[in-house]
């Protein structure tokens, strides 16, 4: 006998399928330490084979975003996979990406001279199955342009990240999500002096068929940690300390 909840769940999935969201496209592997953010996406899985949008303004914000993106990419890739990074006037310093678990020589940089070339290269890259992810720094992306990218991706299942360098030019797109990453004061273990593990305020401004939200995420050497867990752990440490004392 089907309960009411089951019926609603089944209907929700049907609606999703009719809206064009294909659950079989998304991978079933989870990202270590990001389960709470993943829960915001439909079916509770970070959607690969989709296009994500990230706000990427020059300077501090770009730094925080590229750190988070690097960490995200490292959990999507294997050592031999190739990432395409297309941009005009790039400031990314490759050796730093190693901190987030990617070998910098896995990234092939395409330094275009015009914004138009970036868009073209992005589409070509998204069509190529051998590539794991394509990252493109773009100022503008119109709705019809994003539709083209979506069509390219539907056959190849490549994951795309569009870094929007101009926040004033945002418009509706077909991208599956829009992220904003800003820096938060870093954390050190046990209150040691100095700059500690990077920590970010990760906002999901919009998610297609999902739940937008806001999280405090840290990167602890090789995996993500979401703040509330850390808070709990910190308490545990304190308790342990007391017990030992």
């Amino acid at each position, binding site marked *: 006998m089907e309960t009411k909840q089951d019926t609603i769940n089944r209907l929700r999935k049907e609606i999703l399928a009719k809206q064009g969201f294909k659950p079989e496209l998304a991978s079933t592997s989870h990202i270590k330490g990001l389960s709470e953010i993943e829960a915001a996406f439909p079916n509770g899985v970070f959607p690969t084979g989709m296009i994500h949008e990230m706000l990427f303004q020059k300077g501090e914000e770009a730094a925080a975003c590229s750190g988070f993106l690097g960490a995200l990419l490292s959990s999507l890739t294997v050592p031999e996979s190739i990432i395409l990074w297309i941009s005009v006037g790039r400031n990314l*310093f490759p050796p730093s990406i190693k901190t987030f678990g990617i070998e910098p020589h896995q990234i092939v940089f395409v330094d275009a001279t015009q914004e138009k070339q970036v868009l073209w290269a992005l589409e070509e890259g998204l069509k190529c199955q051998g590539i794991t992810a394509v990252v493109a720094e773009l100022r503008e992306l119109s709705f019809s342009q994003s539709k083209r990218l979506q069509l390219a991706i539907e056959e190849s299942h490549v994951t795309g990240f569009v870094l929007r360098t101009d926040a004033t030019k945002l418009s509706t797109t077909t991208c599956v999500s829009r992220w904003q990453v800003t820096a938060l004061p870093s954390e050190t273990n046990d209150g040691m002096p100095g700059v500690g593990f990077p920590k970010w305020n990760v906002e999901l401004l919009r998610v297609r068929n999902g739940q937008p939200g806001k999280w405090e995420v840290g990167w602890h050497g090789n995996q993500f940690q979401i703040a509330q867990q850390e808070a709990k752990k910190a308490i545990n440490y304190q308790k342990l300390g007391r017990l030992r004392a």
Partner: protein
Amino acid sequence: MHKRYMSLWFPTLKTDWKTIRQPELAKVPFVFSTSEKNRLIISACNSIARSSGLHVGMRLADAKAILPDLCVQQDSEDRELKLLKAIGEWCIRYTPLVSLDLPDGLVFDCTGCTHLWGGEENYIREIKARFKSKGYTVRAAIADTIGAAWAMARFSKSTVIEPRSQKLAMSNLPPSALRLDDVTLDKLRKLGFRTIHSFSAIPKSNLRRRFGDLLLLRLMQAYGEVEENFKPLNVPEPYQERLAALEPIRTRVGIEIAIRELLNVMCNRLVGEGKGIRNAVLKTFRIDGKQQSIDIGTNQATCNVDHLFKLFEQKIETIRPALGIELFVLEVTLIGDADISQKSLWTGKTGLADNGVLELLDKLAGKVGSKAIRRYLPQERYWPERSIKQTNDLKEIPQTYWPTDALRPTQLLSKPEVILVTAPIPDYPPMNFRYKDDLHIVKRADGPERIEREWWLDKGEHRDYYIVEDQHGKRYWLYRSGHYGADQTQWFLHGFFA
């Protein structure tokens, strides 16, 4: 194989060229003039002017006295060179080896080409007819040596000199048929040598003593006793395919078909040799004589026609067919060893071993330029700007590990920006700094990390780097150039941490 050369002479090259463009000049005496030593002299004259007694090198004032209604045009410096080059390139249809013979001729190495036109007589007849229909007066002769062909084209009516008979054929020609300078010719004339055979029997040592080396050299070159250097206009490519169009091609579809045809033939040949294309050029020859070319390059040697075609396809727009293209030539300028792999059932390779990725990168390189596609490899150097090595090679693997001991910023400014800081005591991180008019109060800091300049490469101060975090949690990479308190100490912001 026995060499055969053809010399082509344009007696009135420049005036013919002008007459083709201005047909009304055909019926009037017409000369080109050029200034030499502050006076105007004739540099070329047409046949009407010549029949009235004008000749090259005559003063223009004298010529005008003879023919008051003479039509005069200003000559330009390297006109004949440009003209001959263009004509020479057009002549590649008759032989792949064409050489310039300044100031008024061309030399063909027509060895093994003439039978395609039905013998040497017909070869010359065809070329002459072709030039005549365009409006050029030409004279030509074929002989065993360049010297003999040159002489016969200019000084004799016979056009084909049978092999090994150039000595006999040239015996009655004047000494000027030997391409000599004026001084030697003057000497020969004064001594009464009117024909070549009158002095060709004189012992060589005597000739050299009287007239110098040049005469002997020219004589031996004409007779075929000394090899003469032949410098072809275009060195033929060993991997070259030609496709002549029956009718001029004017459409994109036509060009696409031509490219596919050429690639099919070329790739079939290369597959047999175990090679593949790395760089190739497609040249198109238009019926109005214009030549256009497009070139492609690949990251690995390939014989995949579809892929190569796609690379050419990107650039087809740049070809302007105008009235039509009559000849397509595909040249492979760089070949490489291709591993002719079995067609795999599924694409199992990942990353840069995957053909799909390589083909994508070829495509991108075709559009944005191969220099714009780069990877970075670690280098064992500390100076941040030099700690990475840029490479365009997709196969290159890192020779060392990426360093993980020192943190590096995710965004590095290509040019460090000057900032104002308040720093308490030497070797302490700054308390605050001003960047782009914002005051950042340093809450946490790491450092200093001193990086010395590579003194064998450039001069300057060392850098003391600090990682700092401001009141908003934003992280920066700052450095002080030089020692604390020194005169030229300056603080810079070099990057942003994640």
